[in-house]
């Protein structure tokens, strides 16, 4: 993949790669709190079937995932585990922060044990607001992410840097 990393890939080929990446997102579910149930509704219920968007839920390990949905309250005790999960995922990787708690602390904005926003630990691509967001909102977030992926410059995202685990 030296060509991709160097950024010298011809444009049509980039487009093709992006389209195929967009419609084969493997999403790792990091269900933490209330939002995990709404994420379960979106992923596992017949009403909000997420696979029609080309998103495949429930890979066995983060090492197989392209996208992680952080759904729920991130506590200070949980934060190192989330950091480690993110570092286990192979590049290119994306993060959706689902729900007010993961976005900014939500109703626990003055709690002593809650991390106010998962973006303090890992970079976030799409924020889905709500407490908890409806499953439709999560689907909207996934569609937004897919649009982002479709217009992406591969060289910028896929740097091929070595994995560093603290």
């Amino acid at each position, binding site marked *: 993949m030296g060509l991709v990393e160097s950024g010298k890939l011809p444009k049509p080929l980039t487009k093709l790669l992006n389209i195929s990446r967009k419609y084969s997102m493997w999403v790792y579910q990091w269900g933490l*709190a*209330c939002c995990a149930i709404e994420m379960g509704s979106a992923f596992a219920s017949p009403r909000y079937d997420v696979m029609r968007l080309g998103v495949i839920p429930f890979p066995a390990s983060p090492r197989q995932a392209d996208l992680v949905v952080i759904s729920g309250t991130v506590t200070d005790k*949980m934060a190192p*585990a989330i950091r480690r999960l993110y570092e286990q995922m192979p590049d290119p990787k994306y993060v959706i922060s689902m729900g007010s708690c993961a976005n900014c602390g939500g109703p626990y904005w003055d709690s002593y*044990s809650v991390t106010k926003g998962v973006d303090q630990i890992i970079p976030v691509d799409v924020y889905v607001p709500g407490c908890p967001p409806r499953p439709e909102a999560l689907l909207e977030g996934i569609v937004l992410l897919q649009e982002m992926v479709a217009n992406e410059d591969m060289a910028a995202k896929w740097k091929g840097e070595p994995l560093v685990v603290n």
Partner: protein
Amino acid sequence: MTAVSERQQLAYIASQAADMRVNVELETEGMTLNIGPQHPATHGTLRIIVKLDGEQVVAADPVPGYMHRGYEKLSEVRTYPQVTTLINRIDWLGSFANEVPFILAAERLMEVEAPPRAQWIRTILFELSRIANVALFLGDMAVQLGAVTPVFYAFRDREYVLNLIESATGGRFHPNFDRIGGLKDDLPKGWIAETNQVMQKVQAFCDELDALLLGNEIFNVRTRGIGVVPAEVAQSYGLSGANLRASGVDWDHRRDTPCGLVYDKLDWKVWTHPDGDSYARYWVRLQEVREAAKMVVQLCDGLPPGPIMAKVPRIIKVPAGEAWAVTENPLGEMGYYIVSKGDLVPDRVKIRSASFNNISIVPWLLRGVYVPDVISILASLYFILGDIDR
């Protein structure tokens, strides 16, 4: 411990043997398995450190706290109406049921009583949240045993109940509907007829799961005689809810403790099961969903007319004093102890939630079982992390 079974004695001997390296030739290597904090089979972020001897568990240690959000401390800086917003999120599957005991305790301090219609609607929503909560368990338990289909049924039929809660309260997940002295709103038009239809669907869902799972050979082998909790052990560990009733203890706050809900006016039954194993816990919960659906139909029939709000001042200051209120929530006994000093905010709120006590039995229960049974036992105990860590 009060009762030590033969299985646990054997496990203890095995652990001793492994430690002392008595038999070097036949020695199995000890291993520490870390289940969680994030694991598909833990319903959230409970971490369990399991020490194994071969396939057998010799020690299990649950590590809670990954979802500790500090409800008790946060309640001290929120006004009473704001507290219900927070405590909705303790047991996130049956949110409305969390509000009720807090509101009842606050009403006890203020010496107001909700009008009859509000009490009936409260009971309806309480039972609807029980259905929404336990229906997911009924599907999820099967997932832990390797059958994926029932959870799709569970999510499908749970949506109908959530739609009902949403059309009545405005919140699909966290209603925040209960007020001191009554309710926020009356029921919308046509809600009763819709509810009766949905309850038929819930009954059909229960029959479907009954036919799918309870007679299933694999389900029976994986759950019968697995994770047996004798009645005296269950009581000594403070289990409550369906976990206690599955051990044959006939104890239900809805029937035994008079509170501000109208269960005494209904025709219903407390189900118990003598076995105390994973199967019994599943069976009791299935019957409870059926019973809840029956209760909702009865409540809709007998809904009295009248106001839904008692006379309560606009700015709520709760007089000084202490009050304790407890209800039988979907997961078990849930209670709030409020200490008030006459301010806008509570001075101290102690929350007694069911799951914390329910998982306290895990180290005792997992000793001596095999690794695949760990998952089925944990699933059948049915805890919710927000309810454990608060």
